Structure formats: C-alpha cells, structure tokens
C-alpha cells in the first residue's frame, strides 16, 4: 500500500525494469508513450465524469434530477452521448477554411494536454517537473485561445467570428489576473516549481498561511480562471442566447466533442493549478500541534486529497455558472481592468510586504 502514498516508488520501479531491458533511448520513448497513454485515459475519464457531474450538479441546482435513464442514475449517459457524437456526420461550411477548421479542435486539445503534463497529481506522480512549472502552465493554458480564434475564423460564420474575437479579448485580459494572483503565492514560496510549491505547504496551505492577501488572491484566481475557461458567467464566446453557440456554431460530431471535452479539461487544469498553489495540492490538511488529527489526515492518500480539492474548485465553478447571468463584453473588460487588476497589484504589494517583514505563518 505504500505506493498509494508515494508514487515515486512505482515510477522508479517501472523505470528500472525498463532500463534493465532496453537501452536508454528506447526507455525514454517507451516512458513517453506510457505517460501519453496514461494522460489520454485520464482525459477520457475526466470528460466522462465531469460531463456527468456538471449535468447532475446543474440539475440539483435547478430542482431537477438530471439524466436518470441510461445506467444507474444516468451514469452511462455521457458514454451514450459519446457514441451519438461519434456517429454524427462531420459537417463543414462550403466556404470554410478546411485546414484550419479541422486543425482548431486539435490545437485546443493539445494545449490542454500540454498543461496537464506538469500537474503534480500526487507525490512522485508528475510527468514534467520544471523549475518554472507555474510559468509553463500559465503560458500553455492560454494557448487554447488560438484554437478558439482559428475555429471562429475558419468557420465562415459571423456568429463564430464574433464569439472568437470576444474570447480573444477575454482570455488575453484574464491571463493577467490569473498570472498575478498566482504570483502572489510565488512571492511566498519563492519558487515556480510546482513540486516545491506543494512541498512548501506541508505545514499548512498557503490560503491559510498567507493571511488575507492569499484569500483575496484565491478569490481573484477563482474569478479569473473561470473566465479563462470560457465558462459560467464569462461564457461570452459561446453565449448561446446571443451568438447561438459562438465559436463552435459550425462544429458537429467528434470535432464538437473535442471542444466540449477541452472545456472540461481546461476546467480541471485551472482547478488543479488553484488546488496546487492555494490549497496545498496533494498535501493533507494539517493543523499545527494536533498530532492525532494530522495522522488521520495523513492516512488519506494524497491522490484523494488532490482530486478532492480539484473537485471542490470545480464545484465552485459550476455553482457560479448555474447562478449568475452572463456578463456583457464591456462589463467583462471593466471587471478585469478596473477591479481585478488594481486589486491584484495592490494585493501583491501587500503580500510582498508581509513576506519581507516575515509576518506570514
């Protein structure tokens, strides 16, 4: 059972057994394939689970039951939908830019994959552990907007174009807030490496140890990351009551499913970043001095902690989505440039001051 708590034992043993049988180049290739397959499975599972969760959660918010027919309590509903989407005809506009039109969903998926690669799921369960991991993630996760812009541009549909342009303006703006709110914590940790950030929270999560600035940074991160994933009150790029379906109006079948999946994958990624940076990643919940309590908390495997925290973040994002009306584009930019950014900058100053004086826990 030890491997449940420290995955490096497992990965190490796989690495050693491979090294014993193949030469180093092949080992690297095989390991890449293994990791790739693992991520693909995770991706598919996430899609299945999160789509189902979204449906159920939204249903309960709305006093409904949600999908109930396919499988026990509708658990196989997403699977049925995947089959339906696979069988659908991939349609394309006559004047659409065929190459870009087909490329766009893959770019979005690739961006999601790249971001996911450096997430620390548990101790030792991390594909890439850069020393600039946080920077890398925030850089890569904003690549998805290229896919959205391409999709909107190449669809030959004005609704798509408007949606894509909206999304461009939105993501470029909110990337700032996401980055700055993450930086607030980086000031505390002094490192951009995700594994180090997680390790530094062994004695308490940053959201508790960083005083009020950390809480403010967390709230800003929550808002900005919701905007970055094009969800909830910030789904202007889709805006089904204004732009029918925004940038993916013209997509059908599996290509539409890619967009759909990427939305949930992005949601998972930003939640995972938030959980890692603010809520201690896979670190259990510890209270200083309570040894018994801490031991019980330690008994829960880190991977459960990680997914629990991510689940909490995702639930918050769903809660936003199913409560608030959508913002208008100028309101969206006002919110960013007039409220989030100044508050964020001030916040980072206060945090830096705190760290300088050594007032944080």
């Amino acid at each position, binding site marked *: 059972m030890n491997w449940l708590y420290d995955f490096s034992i497992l990965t190490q043993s796989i690495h050693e057994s491979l090294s014993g049988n193949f030469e180093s180049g092949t080992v690297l290739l095989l390991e890449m394939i293994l990791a790739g397959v693992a991520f693909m499975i995770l991706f598919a599972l996430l899609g299945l689970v999160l789509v189902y969760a979204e449906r159920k959660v939204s249903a309960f*918010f*709305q*006093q409904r039951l949600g999908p109930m027919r396919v499988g026990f309590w509708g658990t196989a509903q997403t699977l049925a939908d995947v089959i339906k989407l696979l069988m659908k005809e991939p349609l394309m506009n006559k004047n659409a830019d065929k190459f870009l039109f087909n490329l766009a969903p893959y770019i979005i998926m690739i961006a999601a994959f790249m971001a996911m690669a450096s997430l620390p799921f548990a101790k030792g369960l991390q594909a890439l552990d850069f020393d600039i991991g946080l920077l890398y993630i925030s850089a890569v996760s904003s690549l998805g907007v290229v896919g959205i812009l391409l999709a909107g541009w190449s669809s030959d549909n004005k609704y798509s174009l408007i949606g894509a342009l909206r999304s461009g303006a939105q993501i470029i703006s909110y990337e700032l807030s996401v980055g700055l709110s993450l930086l607030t914590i980086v000031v505390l940790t002094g490192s951009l490496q995700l594994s180090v950030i997680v390790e530094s929270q062994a004695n308490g999560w940053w959201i508790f140890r960083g005083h009020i600035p950390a809480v403010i940074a967390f709230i800003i991160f929550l808002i900005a990351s919701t905007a970055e994933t094009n969800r909830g009150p910030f789904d*202007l790029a889709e*805006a089904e*009551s204004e732009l029918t379906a925004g940038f993916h109006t013209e997509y059908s079948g599996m290509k539409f499913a890619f967009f759909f999946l990427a939305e949930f994958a992005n949601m998972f990624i930003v939640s995972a970043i938030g959980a890692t940076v603010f809520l201690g990643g896979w670190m259990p919940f510890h209270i200083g001095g309570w040894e018994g309590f801490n031991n019980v908390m330690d008994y829960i495997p880190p991977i459960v902690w990680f997914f629990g925290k991510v689940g909490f973040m995702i639930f918050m994002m769903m809660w936003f989505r199913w*409560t608030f*009306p*959508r913002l*208008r584009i100028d309101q969206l930019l006002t919110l960013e440039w007039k409220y989030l950014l100044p508050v964020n900058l001030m916040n980072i100053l206060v945090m830096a001051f705190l760290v300088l004086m050594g007032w944080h826990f």
Partner: protein
Amino acid sequence: MEEIIHDQELESKEYFINMGPQHPSTHGVLRLVLSLDGEIIRKVEPHLGYIHRSIEKMCEHDSYQQIVHLTDRMDYLSCHINNEAVCLAVEQALELEVPDRVKVIRTIIDELTRLSSHQLWWGVMGMDLGAITSFLYGFRDREMITDIFEETCGARLTMNYNIPGGLFFDIHPNFQKRTKDFIAYFKKKLPEYDTLLSNNVIFKQRMDGIGKLSKEDAISFGVTGPTGRASGFSCDVRKHHPYMAYDRVEFKEILDTKGDCFARYKCRIAEMWESMHIIEQLIDNIPEGDYKVPTKAVIKLPKGEWYQKVETARGEFGVYIISEGQRSPYRLKFRSPGFSNLSALDHMARGCKIADLVAIMSTLDLVIPDIDR
C-alpha cells in the same frame, strides 16, 4: 508607401447578421436583420410573418363563439385575456349584462394569467441573460397556475374558458383553495426572484440604462403594457377603461420614468405583487349566481362597429369588430400589443451591443404568434 498605409488603415464596415428565424433568444420565429459595426448595432430590421396564419381572415368566416378560440392561439401566454376581449366586444354589441360571478371569476383568471405570463417572462429573461437556473424556477412556479387552469378550464395553455355571455363551466370546487395556496406559496417565492436576479450586480449592470425609451416615444410608438408604463406612459386599460371587476378592486398602476430595461423589469416584478393583491381581494368574495347568461346558438351582432380593449400581460390588446349583421364579422382586427412594442425595437436598440439587444428583446416580452397573427 503611402498607398500601403492607406490600405492597411482599419476601416469599419457594417455587416449584417440574421438573428432568427431560428435563434435561441427570439422566442419563436422572429427574424431580425441586424446591421452591425463590430458589436455595435446600427439598425434592427424585423422581418415578420413566419407564423402568420391570417387569423383575421379566418375570423371573417367564423361564428363569434369560434373566433374566441382563435384568440387563444395569438398571445398564448395571456390567452384568457384575449378571449375576454372578444367576449366583451360581443357582449357589448348585444348589450348583454353578464352576472357578477362571471365578472369576478374572469378577473381572477385574468390576473392568474398575467402572473403566469410574467413568471414565464422572468424565467426566460434570466435565460436570455445566461442565468439558466431562473428558467426552471420560473417554470416551477408557473406550473402551479397551469394546474389551477387545468382543473377549472380544462386545458393548460389554450384554455378557451370564455364564451360570449359568460364562462364555459362554473369554477371547480377546488379553485379557491388552490388559488389561495398558490398565492401563499408564491409570496414566499417571489422575493427569491429578487435575490437571484434583481439584486445581482451583473444583472443590474446589464439592464441599467439599456434600451431607453422616452415617454413621448413610447406614446408615439404605441408601446403599452409594462414596457410603456416603465417609460412613464400611463396606459393601464384596467385603470383607464375598467372592464369586468377591475372597478371594484383596489390596485396601483405601476409607473416608472426611467424607461430602460431595468425599469421594465421592475415594473413586471411589481405587477406580480399587484396581481396577487387583486386576486386576494376577490378570491374570497366570488358572488353566487349563474356562470353564464344564455345566448342564441347563432350569435348575430347588429350592424355597427365596436372596439374593445383589454390589458393583457404585454399591453393593450384591442379587438375591432365591424359587423354587417351576419353571423360572422365583416372585418375583424386584432390590435396586438406585441406588434406595436416591436416597432420600437429598432429605436431602442440602436447603438447598443448584441448582448443588449437580447436584454431589450426579453424586456419587451414579445410573443411571436401575437405579432404575426
């Protein structure tokens, strides 16, 4: 070099978008051709007639009892009030005095209809602005009213409960109890509407100052109902030309002066409170008596013309009957509130963004069959 720079200069060019006939926020088959400059709307041109059924022409061949049921299909959300307009016109022409009981029952059901229409509007309004949850809450409460209708009138939507001279049936024994239950229930739920949407900062900012309509414009465009009253146009037919039992109940005409989307929104919410207030005054005082006065099987109006207006959930609904003494009218015109309200859309939406247009449309509360007829 200069030429190249000139070529590269960004010129803004208007482009067109077809909003509808199939579009999530047009609530039916309305087609709006938008001239856009980026996201700014320069012109809105409504194209109507996708569900034009020529009801007026059909009426020229129908008997007056049959006309009543056609009005159900126009503004299906305030069908009972539409029915009443025709019935009142016929009763006026025949100089029939309907019993008190009929008047009170009709008034109660009128107000229930208005409530259910506003509930649906509230839900759809939230959905247009992206808050999908409000849609289900609106429908949840509306369901109780449709149950009342189903039990008493026999149908949930197109009730056809009015006939010239009275009502189709007497009210169901459960009617009073159910209505009282509903009022008690809805009084608890209506503040929830406010916490969910009205007080929400996003919602407020999206509505405030959008789609302004001045009082003069409202009168000139003939914009009536809550939409007109939000601009300060005192146009409540229930107050100015009381029909049925409206002269014996006490209620306020909701007026606002701002004339923007939020004013219209608040007017409708306030109207729901007023409607409940009216029902409360009447529900315990339904007088005993007949539920209809006997009419001939074939109603023939005398020669002449009548115009009867009533206040539907959307505004002033008028029936203009010209009779030549036959069993069918010579000419029958429905003045539908949505038609006039829609004419002001272009005026209100110019200079707004696409998202604002959606908000304006949902505060106008258009029902497309009402416009197309």
